[in-house]
């Protein structure tokens, strides 16, 4: 289909910058139009990667939650609060199976699954004080690389917005998503 989304966006950006903005006299309106143009520019850089971003997150959250379940599984003294979250995760994995071809699912399914998995992981983090010492230590160790990967990914995603003083040191989001075959074909 043509035109591609990028073409729509760049056409709108050009019109706002070259037709609308020069004819605005109100300072507030100029400021807002500038932000709209900058937003369109940002959307151009990410619009074709949104689906794969969510797919990538889907894999990441499934992987970390499976690791966490394995850790908790070895703890005989797990309390009811933690057990309840474990049950929620197991139940969710019936709905979005870790070994399923998620890539064939529609975007809202993947996004919805991710939002649920984020909440489960957050609940586990909140419940850390209720874990035994050894379990908490293992849990924290498991999370560190996950946090790093999340931080790097998100910072790359927003680099085009122009706020990051370290923007030049951030990888492009396309490099993170597509290099090294990180998106598995499961």
């Amino acid at each position: 289909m043509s035109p591609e989304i990028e073409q729509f966006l760049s056409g709108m950006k050009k019109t706002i910058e070259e037709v609308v903005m020069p004819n605005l006299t109100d300072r507030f309106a100029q400021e807002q139009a500038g932000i709209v143009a900058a937003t369109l520019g940002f959307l151009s850089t990410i619009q074709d990667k949104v689906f794969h971003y969510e797919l990538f997150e889907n894999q990441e959250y499934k992987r970390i939650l499976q690791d966490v379940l394995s850790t908790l599984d070895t703890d005989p003294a797990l309390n009811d609060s933690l057990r309840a979250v474990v049950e929620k995760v197991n139940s969710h994995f019936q709905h979005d199976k870790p070994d399923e071809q998620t890539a064939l699912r529609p975007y809202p399914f993947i996004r919805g699954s991710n939002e649920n998995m984020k909440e489960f992981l957050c609940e586990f983090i909140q419940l850390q004080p209720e874990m035994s010492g050894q379990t908490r230590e293992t849990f924290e160790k498991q999370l560190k690389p996950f946090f790093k990967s999340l931080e790097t990914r998100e910072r790359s995603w927003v680099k085009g917005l122009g706020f990051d003083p370290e923007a030049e040191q951030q990888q492009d989001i396309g490099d993170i998503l597509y290099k090294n075959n990180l998106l598995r074909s499961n």
Partner: protein
Amino acid sequence: MNNYYTTTQANRAKPSDDWIADIRKSYPVEKAIDEVFTRKLRNRNKAAGQNLDFTRLQKPLEEFLKKQTRQSDIEVLDLQRLSGGASKEQFTFNMVWQAPSGQKETRKLMVRMDPKESIVETHRLRECQVLKAAWGEVPVPEVLWIDPEGEQLGQPALIADFLEGTVQPPQPEAEDKMSGVGMYFNPQLRGALSEQFVQILADIHAIDWRKKDLSTLDVPTPNSTAAILTSFGLWERAWNEDTLCAHPVMERGALWLKENMPIVENPMLVHGDYRSGNFMYSDDLKINAIFDWELAYLGDYHDDLAWASLTIFGGPDENGDLLASSLMPTTQFLEKYEQLSGNKVDPKKLFYYQVFSFYKISVIAAATSIRVAHSRKTHLDAMMNYAGGIGYIGLSELNRILDIAG
């Protein structure tokens, strides 16, 4: 996003009375904060978005001023929206009135008004009280009148003197920065403004708040964690009321902040948003106003020190070295503060408030700004979405500093 993927997301978008009651029980906050946060949640269910036609304000403003001044022939002229700023709608106007001298006079004033939902939900009467407490102690605009509940002006608002000056000097890349984020001051400006910036902060912390009318601020018990409990409670509650998505790094941060709360020995008046972008200077390079007191509270001065030197608000000098609030190296800022205030900088406490600062900026920019744009309840929807980018840098920095914390 039109669909809510989880029950929590649906509750946040359409809060029920039970959900609001649960939230109020879960996070300890000051009484005034509970009042505005609860009002925000109740209003969230109302469909009306933000009305951008500010001419609606003309008539109520005239009526309000007539009541306040007890003059029937008040005129409001040249009502204009101010650009810049993010949290409140701001307007200027000329008020034609009879001055106390008996002469007909024109006075330029400003209105600072809550949008339907704000990037930070705050209490107008509280801000008014703090501004009045600071009046005469440090440079602030004089607050004249307040409509704390918005009964007359439609939304809570205060009216203050309009001061002339510069907030953001011309930027080298010929592009405006979002106020206070990565701004640049040339060496002449830095030379003139840096010490004043620190002196005023020291003066704020020295205000004898016990002698002021600050009835909307809770007074924390000295030598306890009471001040940080409610201060952190505010931000944790804001996150849980506003975010569109759960975020594991925020939970990591919240847990660390709760498990490592330092004692506040001697609560002081903390500005709460002291940084470049929130002060103005005159043509003779004197800081003539400190703005945005809405987050002020009684707490630990390290909070202002950490916030003012937060890397996100800093800008580089000519060598590319990052400066605290774009004015001076952080070590110099802290040394100068110790010298001018007599307050010792405790590195451990400073570190705690640095973590807290990254948590706060993440709440503001990755949660609340995106929420208010999502709800169409602000005058700056495009900017609020865009500002989400700052939130993700905040989250990244929060994660990094938590790695250092171990």
